[in-house]
């Protein structure tokens, strides 16, 4: 496994990190380092161990084995000191529905020991940042899903964290709301905030992450930048063929047309440097698929290659 920097520089340093529950190994001896200023992703399907990893980094779950250092400290010994410098966006919103929008930020700032005046100032500033200023005096329950998510992100920033942990930041949001969240995260990254996120959306990982690890069944199965992972594990282009439902796909006739062929329930994927040429060749063999699509490889293809399964099933 490629490890870039010396341990001392890494904001998060994990070796052989393991989390066992009574009858389940949720995280199985994983190694990774997160460097200051980067956006680092954990990509994988539900149940891959992403959330368990995030909870250990967030010091609310203790490792069963292995080494974990966060901001140079031990999460088991120094939990409160580490958490004082973290921002956490959990998978399910934990906003206080008994409080108004700005009160959520104010009370949360107080948990960090921030003085009242300063807490009020930051609440206003952050509501501006996540574009919720006009909802400041609203009740949280009247916010849309995307607004709640943005408020949760604002809340995680109230202590001006060096490290922002986001567990599936845009799951369940519509495309417009997702783009708004991505835009804010991108700005944070430019301001120098180190971002660690989990996702099962390949486009999210491609958009946001400088580097990522692909997790499956509690282990890391690949590691690198989105581009390098695609280069390493997939072809440049993918030709997607769909055949009518009542036709058995003629897999044998496709032999030799691509570097690799994946037959999914609803379509056949041909991995090839030149999708157009492969499409012509398919026609040349007398095959008439219902639809043909040539596209670039994505992390989805990487995941399929590595695990034999789709990310979102």
């Amino acid at each position: 496994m490629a490890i870039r920097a010396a341990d001392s520089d890494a904001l998060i340093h994990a070796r052989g990190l393991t989390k066992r529950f009574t009858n389940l190994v949720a995280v199985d001896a994983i190694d990774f380092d997160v460097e200051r200023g980067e956006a680092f992703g954990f990509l994988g399907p539900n149940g891959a161990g992403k959330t368990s990893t995030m909870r250990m980094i967030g010091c609310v779950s203790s490792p069963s084995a292995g080494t974990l250092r966060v901001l140079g400290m031990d999460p088991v010994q120094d939990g409160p000191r580490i958490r004082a410098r973290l921002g956490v966006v959990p998978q399910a919103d934990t906003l206080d529905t008994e409080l108004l929008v700005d009160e959520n930020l104010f009370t949360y700032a107080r948990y960090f020991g921030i003085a009242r005046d300063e807490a009020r100032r930051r609440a206003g500033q952050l509501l501006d940042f996540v574009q919720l200023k006009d909802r400041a005096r609203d009740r949280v329950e009247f916010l849309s899903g995307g607004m709640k998510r943005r408020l949760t992100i604002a809340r995680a920033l109230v202590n001006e964290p060096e490290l922002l942990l986001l567990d599936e930041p845009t799951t369940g949001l519509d495309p417009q709301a997702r783009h708004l969240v991505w835009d804010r995260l991108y700005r944070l990254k430019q301001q120098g905030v180190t971002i660690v996120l989990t996702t099962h959306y390949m486009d999210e990982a491609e958009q946001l992450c400088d580097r990522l690890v692909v997790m499956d069944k509690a282990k890391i199965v690949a590691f690198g930048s989105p581009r390098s992972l695609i280069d390493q594990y997939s072809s440049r282009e993918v030709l997607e063929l769909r055949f009518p439902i009542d036709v058995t796909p003629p897999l044998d006739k496709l032999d030799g047309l691509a570097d690799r062929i994946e037959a999914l329930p609803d379509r056949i994927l041909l991995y090839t440097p030149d999708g157009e040429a492969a499409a012509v060749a398919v026609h040349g063999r007398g095959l008439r698929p219902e639809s043909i699509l040539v596209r670039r490889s994505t992390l989805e293809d990487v995941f399929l290659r590595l695990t034999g399964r789709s990310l979102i099933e």
Partner: protein
Amino acid sequence: MTGALRVLEHNLIVYRRTWKGSVFVSFVSPILFLAAMGLGLGGLISRGPVRTVDGLPYLAFLAPGLLVATAMQSGYVETTFPILARIQWERTYEGMLATPLHVLDLLVGEFGWLALRLGLGSVAFFLIMLLFGTVHSGLGILAIIVSVLTGLAFAGPILAWTATQRTTTSFSLIGRFLITPLFLLGGVFFPIHQLPQLVQWIAWLTPLAHGVALARSLLVGVVPSSAGIHLAVLLVYLAAGIAAARITLQRRLVT
């Protein structure tokens, strides 16, 4: 313990919006109970052959019992549904524990807040008692503290239990098989010594009987020789409850 203060501050901010309704309820309930049971039933007793209960007019006998029993019920109500909501449905505690706060901050903050709430409720009740003329000694004001302690003595163990629950099924069972029987048999409406020996023993094992006995003495200006035992029972329940809650809540939230 500044962390606990911040948890308390959070509750205060929430309360800013709900206090009117809650203050209203804290006055209405004692008025209703004292009027109906004390004046209604008490009127009947005062015309009977004995005329008093344990040497007290019925209203004076009943009022301290109701004061303490009301605190018990608040202690139960505040540590079941609202706490499970913060653990599981709203996940407020998960959010709090992502900050420098500890589980113990959270617990001490919640109990501190509950003590304030029980205090407010008990003061309201006490004011109504003054109005009904059932406070016969300045010592009676100490009954407010006894009432708060009794509420907390129930809140501790019940919160510890709530932290182990994933559904609300057991909450109504606690109400039906613990809180209501104690309300009826814990010395609130009639003296415990009228009950069968076994039931008496059971009653004295719970905080309610001790809280009621102590409050009742204080309100007629007597510090009973058993005061130390009563207080000790209440404090042991409270301390054991917080210790247990610390373990169960930690197990639930920090895995």
